[in-house]
């Protein structure tokens, strides 16, 4: 299985995807949580608005992204915006070079999951005792210093959980890839994470259960190793967090 270039390629695809999507989602959802936590007016409104996409199905969002926002014709939302600036339409999902399809996949996933992690961070932020901030204010700390030395350390337990969940989610990448990129009965040879590859090998018309299960075992091993390493680094489950 490991000698199959397509499978190795799928592992690379998905490592690259994880390396990008995990920190990006982390930063954006933490930023959103900080902004919402600071808002005094209509806080619950903003909270709900940011959280709402979480309730949307990945399949539905993928189809909206594919068919209406990033469709290749002039009336697609993204191309209509480009049109205002006099730029040509871009067939976002058809081009392999430059790889615009990553923009479509990544924005869809960000839209879907940022709200959920924002809520987790928000809960963490609201648990931080105000006395810490008061003490810091007396000591003359403000802005970035407060964030760096109080908010971030106090959010460690939340951050650990968020990172772990994000990584698991990235490993499970299937829905939006499959629904955005598959065409009638085929899937392009790029942007093919392992679950998509294994779907076509074992469950699709291939029905090659031997290679499919071998791939699944390799995937499980990788996830287990990453989870253990991450647990070590972040000292998951330590007392006193």
């Amino acid at each position, binding site marked *: 299985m490991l000698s199959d270039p*397509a499978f190795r390629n799928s592992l690379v695809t998905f490592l690259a995807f994880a390396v990008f999507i995990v920190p990006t989602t982390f930063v954006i959802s933490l930023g959103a949580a900080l902004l919402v936590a600071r808002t005094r007016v209509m806080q619950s409104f903003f909270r709900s608005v940011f959280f709402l996409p979480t309730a949307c199905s990945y399949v539905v969002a993928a189809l909206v992204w594919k*068919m*209406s926002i*990033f*469709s*290749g*014709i*002039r009336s*697609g939302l993204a191309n209509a915006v480009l049109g205002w600036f006099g730029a040509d*339409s871009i*067939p*976002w*999902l*058809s*081009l*392999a*070079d430059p790889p615009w399809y990553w923009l479509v996949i990544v924005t869809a996933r960000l839209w879907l999951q940022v709200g959920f992690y924002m809520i987790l961070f928000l809960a963490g932020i609201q648990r931080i005792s105000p006395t810490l901030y008061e003490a810091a204010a007396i000591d003359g700390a403000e802005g970035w210093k407060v964030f760096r030395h109080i908010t971030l350390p106090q959010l460690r337990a939340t951050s650990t959980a968020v990172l772990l969940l994000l990584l698991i989610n990235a490993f499970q990448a299937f829905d939006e890839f499959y629904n955005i990129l598959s*065409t*009638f*009965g*085929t899937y*392009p*040879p*790029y942007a093919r994470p392992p679950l998509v590859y294994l779907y*076509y090998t074992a*469950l*699709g*018309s*291939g*029905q*090659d259960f031997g290679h499919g299960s071998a791939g699944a075992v390799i995937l499980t091993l990788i996830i287990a190793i990453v989870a253990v390493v991450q647990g070590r680094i972040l000292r998951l489950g330590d007392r006193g967090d």
Partner: protein
Amino acid sequence: MSDKQIGREIGQALGAHLTRRSLFALGGAAAVTGALAACGSNTGREPAATGGATGGASGTTLNQWYHQYGEAGTQQAVEKYAAAYKDATVKVSWKPGDYDQSTAASLLTDAGPDVFEYGNGPTIDMIKGGQVVDLTDLIGDTKSDFNPSILERMTYDGKTYAIPQVVDMQLLVYRKSMLDKAGITPPQTIDELIDAAKKLTQGNVKGLFLGNDGGAGLMGGPMLWSAGLDYLTKDNQFGFDDPRAATALGKLREMWDAKVLLLGAPKDWFDPSALTAGLTAMQFTGLWTFPDLKKGLGDDFGVMAWPALDGQGKASVPVGAYGSCVSAKSKDVEAAKKFVKWLWIDQTAYQLDFATAYGFHIPSRTSLIGQASTLTSGQAADAAKLATDVGHAQSPILWTPKCNTAFGDAMNRIVKEGADPAGEIAKVKTVADAELKRVLA
């Protein structure tokens, strides 16, 4: 960790002391849930006691599976045909979703169908695995009446494993008014087609639509045929290890580079909306779109085959058909075969009704085409003639799904990424040679 320890930990985790009695209660609940789940597992098959155990003709129950047809009334039609059969009780199952995959998997189990339809007949793996039975004797002297390329596609080693139900085809459809305006006649070669597409590309209207992947998924076969080649040769060897194939596949990249292809349409090639909404002047699509095309464009459309590469090649239209097969695991194979013969060979009136009353398809029996009123005039008549004259079965029976994936990947790299066609063809050959060796072993 022993079981007891685990039990204690779970008990503590639940924050309650589980006594032995409450554990039994839990177990009981689980058993009840299991029984309920069993009630819910409707496999679509009668329990064995009432099934074909009697063996008598009148007491037999047959399960027949169809994929979900999009046209209204089709399901009621096939149920009507099944109810009209007197020699056995036929239960029709209408299967939405990924029909091909789930049917292939169910054939390995006892919950599979007795009679089922499958796209272009059963796969070579089903035949090799003995999952479907030989239906050659059902056809008898009607053989010459079936579309020859379709029947050949469902035949392996001289034995026919499926009876074609209706023929579907794909073809090139163009907007007459747009071609007239640009002063173009329907192109006869691939180069003429590229020129026409260039002239027809104006502003937001593109010249040609071959699918949102630029034809990578759809046009591989027609491109090989246009060069006079095929997936496999007559003696089942790899068929396009040839510089002409590289030239032909490279033409798709030429169209891509010329920016004359419509890409990223909201609905892909199998839907007529790109043509009716005026996004493209020509589109490769299916006969099934004709009712919608008629509604949207009136008479402003014409049909043609995918042109030949040059004088040495051939024009073609891909044709395919769902074929009715009999599972080898059926409890009463003979009764199932009898039903297939009754419906798809003897009942020509039902076959005509199924092909023409709901959507646009071509009857698989040549003698019925003349009686199909939907196909006697206008563009549909032209299309039906193309299917008979230059129809080409979509892919040969020995071209396995694995070959198809390798070919699809190669096509994507050639068309979208501009990879060297000859190099990509060599990669497909490696996979296909190994697959041919496997299935012919």
